[in-house]
């Protein structure tokens, strides 16, 4: 094939390859130029928030910001103005409509006159129960059982105490010996139950009478949450262990639907609708060493979608649809003050870093806008998170592919234009009969010389054969030159049919390749 064509064929193949890859990138949607940013709308000092929620406590249709730490319970309005502040000691809180006025109320489990429960309804603080037979506050939850609502308290020694909404104890349980680490409402056949878990790894589901529906043990755990991930009327109980065990239990019977080991303590678990498909819910898990995992649950089992990381222990996870595409992004904070947005495919986009560790993150509508509220060790910041993308950026692989292809073709054209290196064997041959005869004589003398050298032992083996082959080749060229010039010549050489080496007539075996010659 022509030396001028080969570079173009190679170039064509490469160009096709480049354009196929470019096309795959362009149309797969993998290439995007997107960024997330945030502006602080308002901020206010607040120390070490333990719980935070954006919710309407006044019934005016506008959400307020609830925040609580170990020393007080505070509510700000949408613009950051302080509405209420109540001092408490070692308090734990939950929010629910306790009085049935369709407005959320605050229920506080604190160490007041013994273990006590207060309510804050529309800014009015009142005591519901005091001197309760339960230890230091660990968790509180308001569960709407089918038989009626109950306030369930959990303490640091693993005991549970249930109260009616008027503060009368109904049942108690000491199902564990260590701190209650999670309480949540779990659905079984559409009915509401209580899922509870303690630090020693005990996980149980209770009915309205405090009877255990099922219980199980696992490694020490840090987090427990219950979600109905596939909206089938049965919740899934999700636990994260002290040593990385991640379990999803069926709330109905306690069977394990999924479990894996994440390799580090699970510090937070939240549900985030990452893919926008309501038939499957996604769970984002944060680790003590900064690991981030996203799982999707299809009703039967969970599948890991992606993994990522932050620089330090993940302290909070929240979901918000920042770019308005119907899919939530996961906003994560860590103990070093980093806040990052993880998208559906797990790409990480950093927001501004805080000078102290992130305590809580929540998402909600304050005023007319949806905000991400971030509480670090020293303050609360309300952020307006924004999203920017370059339109049409997904087609840049095609532009890059065209640039690369054009340069490949230019290179091919240049290489094709360079002439081939000349043959490094040149022959200067006079075509006169006298000259050809003299050359022939010289070649025969040289052949005789080589034979003499071989006989005397000066030249042996390959060197002898190589020299002989070259001289015989020259002799064959000489014969061809004779024939071409039309001079009579007695042919004395022939070519080996196997290796093409020139041999003297009459030889029955090729000296170069060992081929037996019959003709």
């Amino acid at each position, binding site marked *: 094939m022509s030396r001028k064509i080969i570079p173009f064929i190679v170039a064509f193949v490469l160009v096709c390859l480049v354009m196929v890859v470019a096309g795959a990138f362009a149309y797969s949607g993998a290439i995007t130029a997107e960024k997330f940013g945030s502006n602080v709308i308002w901020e206010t000092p607040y120390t070490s928030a333990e719980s935070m929620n954006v919710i309407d406590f006044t019934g005016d249709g506008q959400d307020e910001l609830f925040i609580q730490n170990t020393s007080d319970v505070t509510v700000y309005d949408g613009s950051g103005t302080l509405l209420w502040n109540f001092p408490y000691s070692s308090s734990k809180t939950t929010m629910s409509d306790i009085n049935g006025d369709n407005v959320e109320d605050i229920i506080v489990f604190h160490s007041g006159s013994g273990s006590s429960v207060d309510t804050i309804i529309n800014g009015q603080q009142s005591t519901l129960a005091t001197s309760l037979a339960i230890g230091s506050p660990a968790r509180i939850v308001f569960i709407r059982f089918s038989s009626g609502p109950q306030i369930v308290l959990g303490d640091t020694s693993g005991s549970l105490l249930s109260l009616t909404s008027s503060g009368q104890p109904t049942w108690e349980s000491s199902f564990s010996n260590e701190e209650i680490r999670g309480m949540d409402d779990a659905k079984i056949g559409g009915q509401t139950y209580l899922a509870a878990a303690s630090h020693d790894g005990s996980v149980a589901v209770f009915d309205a009478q405090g009877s255990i529906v099922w219980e199980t043990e696992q490694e020490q755990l840090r987090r427990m949450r219950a979600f109905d991930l596939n909206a089938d009327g049965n919740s899934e109980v999700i636990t994260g262990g002290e040593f990385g065990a991640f379990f999803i239990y069926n709330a109905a019977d306690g069977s394990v639907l999924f479990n894996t080991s994440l390799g580090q303590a699970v510090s937070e678990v939240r549900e985030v609708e990452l893919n926008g498909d309501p038939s499957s819910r996604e769970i984002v898990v944060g680790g003590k060493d900064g690991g981030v995992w996203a799982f999707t649950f299809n009703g039967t089992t969970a599948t890991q979608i992606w993994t990522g990381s932050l620089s330090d222990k993940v302290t909070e996870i929240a979901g918000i649809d920042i770019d308005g595409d119907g899919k939530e992004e996961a906003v994560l904070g860590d103990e070093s003050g980093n806040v990052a947005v993880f998208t559906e495919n797990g790409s990480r986009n950093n927001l501004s870093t805080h000078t102290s560790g992130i305590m809580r993150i929540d998402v909600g509508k304050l005023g007319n806008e949806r905000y991400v509220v971030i509480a670090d060790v020293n303050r609360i910041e309300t952020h307006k998170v924004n999203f920017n993308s370059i339109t049409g950026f997904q087609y*840049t692989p095609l532009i890059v592919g065209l640039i*690369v292809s054009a340069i490949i073709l230019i290179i091919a054209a240049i290489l094709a234009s360079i002439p081939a290196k000349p043959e*490094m*064997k040149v022959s200067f041959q006079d075509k006169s009969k006298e000259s050809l005869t003299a050359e022939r004589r010289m070649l025969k003398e040289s052949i005789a010389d080589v034979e003499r050298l071989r006989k005397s032992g000066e030249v042996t083996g390959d060197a002898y054969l190589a020299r002989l082959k070259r001289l015989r080749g020259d002799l064959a060229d000489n014969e061809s030159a004779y024939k071409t010039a039309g001079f009579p010549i007695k042919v004395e050489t022939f070519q080996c049919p196997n290796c093409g080496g020139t041999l003297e007539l009459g030889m029955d075996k090729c000296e170069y390749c060992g081929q037996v010659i019959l003709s």
Partner: protein
Amino acid sequence: MPLLCIAGVIGVIILSLFFYLLNTARKKTAPVTNIMGKKEFTPVYVSIADKPDSIMLGMDRFVKEVQKTESAGDKWRWIPMLIFFVGVALVAVDGVLILFGYFSFIFTMGAFALWIAAFVMARSLRKSDSFDFSPRYKGTKEILHTLRDDLKPNATFLGHLDLTGALLPTKVAREAKDTQDRTTQYFRDEWLALKAKLYDGNVLRVSAIQKSKKRKSYTKRSRISGKYKTKPEKFKGTEHDIKVRIVVNPEVYKIVTNKEFRPGVNIGKYTISQLSTENGMVNVVASSPFDEVEQEQILNFLKSAYSLLQRKAA
């Protein structure tokens, strides 16, 4: 830390590529040397069977042809460097995007593709480079030029000029093993063979032979550690022989003895080792321990060999 290492390795590769392309553009490449520590030359084999002028013209034409190939590549030598900078520009686009807060790597991927293409092109351009022609090439031309007036009218020079290399496997004349089972190869490279019928009726044959010695690489076991070590091949030296035969035209010359041209006498870089004047022929073999012998030495030796011939009275 691993990311830093990967970035470092990529940085070193890109920097190496930059200097490779820069040296390609400036045509600055390290001279290639052979095992003898000498510069490599263009390996060429010239078969000689023509009149001196045709041979000399042909040799010049061949040099020009080789140079033409090289110069055809020379004008494009800066292109790989330009392609490299196009790649840098693409990386800069990604850099600007990252500066504005957008994460992008697609332009960098394109840059890597371009850098690979630039490297391939630079390799091809370097391949079109030729080594210099051996001084023997020019020297042989000088010999032909000097002898052309002594040639019988319309006669041709016959022979060859073999500059393909003295240490080719096909030029191993013999091998010998020493007591330690190490193999030494003896090379015989008849790089110049020339035969010419001269104006005075004599027939002159000249052969220039380079004899070299090389010890092949071998493996030996260390007496102390017991480990096997491979020793590289070692060049052991070279010497040059010249063989001259003059078939004397008895009608013109008679052979005489000459005290200045006898075995053991130095003629330039050569020392005569054998001399025979029987059967109307002068056969002389001389050797030289020098690494290289120039064409002046060969011509001077031929001139000295002619001192054995005495022109008969008319």
